[in-house]
């Protein structure tokens, strides 16, 4: 039995938090997307060949989208749970008749909604710079939602694990951002010299970027099903970890 009203309350509150900083939430992705397009699309892209029959400017859109989504979703939801722990307002959630299902549906649902808003903003901004058509728009939508769900859960775990602000920022800084940049955001894995194209396959972000690129243009570095599989596996691991955290009350209840 899921308490839907409680879930809805958590969901709307989380969205509210996002909208409270709406200006920043909208402006930041518009600005960064534009900057990337100016630098990579216009300055460098002009000298780049088409990749798999896709113009370089269009090629980087899924990567760019993934770069922003992973960063924003992770930091947003890690703050979303860390701040109530830090300020003590988490008492209300803990004393309410809600369990892991309501909490996750509320938080993750809000994260997915935010991600779709962000994705829409980025796609519209990109359109100002390059022409592109999405081959599988519906699958792209599903894929974005899956990735948003997985990384909001990942952020959630970070926010529960962190016991200071430094720890909160360190994982995205040390792992997420580098792996995303090395994950084929701005290039195809084929373009890497010999051993590196194989080594790159150890980077899970490669599969995420590649999967999204496939939904956009119908071709990618790795098989789409492998990408889907890895995304789902990551999602399942995160759900498992969080369920365990809630059951034991680790870092939530004293």
């Amino acid at each position, binding site marked *: 039995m899921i*308490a839907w*009203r*409680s879930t*809805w*309350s*958590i969901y*709307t*509150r989380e969205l*509210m938090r996002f909208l*409270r900083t709406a200006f920043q939430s909208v402006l930041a992705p518009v600005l960064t997307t534009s900057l990337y397009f100016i630098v990579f699309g216009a300055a460098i892209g002009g000298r780049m060949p088409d990749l798999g029959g896709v113009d370089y400017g269009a090629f980087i859109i899924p990567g760019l989208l993934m770069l922003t989504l992973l960063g924003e979703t992770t930091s947003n939801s890690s703050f979303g749970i860390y701040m109530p722990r830090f*300020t*003590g*307002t988490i*008492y*209300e*959630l*803990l*004393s*309410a*008749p*809600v*369990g892991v299902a309501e909490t996750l549906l509320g938080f993750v649902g809000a994260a997915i909604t935010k991600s779709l808003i962000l994705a829409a903003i980025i796609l519209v901004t990109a359109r100002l710079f390059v022409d592109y058509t999405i081959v599988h728009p519906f699958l792209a939508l599903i894929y974005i939602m899956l990735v948003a769900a997985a990384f909001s859960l990942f952020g959630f775990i970070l926010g529960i694990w962190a016991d200071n602000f430094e720890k909160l920022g360190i994982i995205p800084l040390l792992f997420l951002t580098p792996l995303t940049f090395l994950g084929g955001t701005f290039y195809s894995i084929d373009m890497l010299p010999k051993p590196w194209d194989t080594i790159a396959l150890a980077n899970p972000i490669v599969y995420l970027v590649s999967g999204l690129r496939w939904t956009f243009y119908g071709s990618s570095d790795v098989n789409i099903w492998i990408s889907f599989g890895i995304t789902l596996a990551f999602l399942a691991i995160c759900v498992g970890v969080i369920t365990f955290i809630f059951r034991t*009350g680790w870092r939530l*209840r*004293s």
Partner: protein
Amino acid sequence: MPDQSRTRIRTLDASASPIVDISALTKVYPGGLTALDGVDLRIRKGEIFALLGPNGAGKTTLIGAICGLVTPTSGSIRVFGHDLATDWRKARQRIGLVPQELSTDMFDPVMRAVSYSRGLFGLAPDPARIEEILRSLSLWDKREERIMALSGGMKRRVLIAKALAHEPDLLFLDEPTAGVDVELRKGMWSIIDEMRSRGVTIILTTHYIEEAEEMADRVGVIRKGRIIAVDEKEALMARLGRTEAHIALAAPLQVLPPEIARFSVELEDGGTSLCYRGGDGTGKGKAEVAELTKALYAAGIDYTGIEIRESSLEDIFVSLLGEGEQ
């Protein structure tokens, strides 16, 4: 004496099943500190129960264990007949908590924060009910204000409003009047009184004995994680209360005549003052002092003044804590 009080409570509880039933509750924090040490406590429907205890006694920990913020190390808690270990959803639905710390989302306007609490507990929106709650706490005029812009006392009222938003039958107030001025404190008392009249059972912690004396039906004293006394406020005062009277004598006395010495009196200040200590907090002391003055008059002992004082819950509290120390 504690044994006596336990029996008494047991017999009283037999008449109605308790709303909260805690047995052998122990909490050892990860650092090894035992914050609760075998707590047994029963709370009856509709009562106001005051939990008294010095800093660090375990009051907040006890409340936290009932409200789901603290995982007990051992023992059991039943609320409304639901075992918290398994049936926590049904129990929590009916519990409201006002925490000791002023923690709430400071950016939210009052109205939204209170409505959120109602929704979080799974209830349908009810603006009329929220309005009623805000009005009863004099927050209606502030409903659109951000919580951070309110004064400390007002913030505490917002926390109370949030705790009342889902119409709980059991309310925990962890130091509701800490840092609140006298006037607001009186206001808080009338709010608590009103909730009681609506049938809400209230458990509050406080450092102000005055508050327990004013509000509570029953009092529990906790020290180092153990409940060292639980009883009706009146019974506690009757059992441990004392009357103290100082009678200033017109002429110093060296020895007391037998008809005076039969009272529990002694001479003080070189025989210029007669001190009575006795009674039981139910007025027996006052009556005895009256008898004493008549006896003095009959014995021809003149006096120039009488000072009489009933011991307060505070004295009892202090003496209980002293007892616990030994």
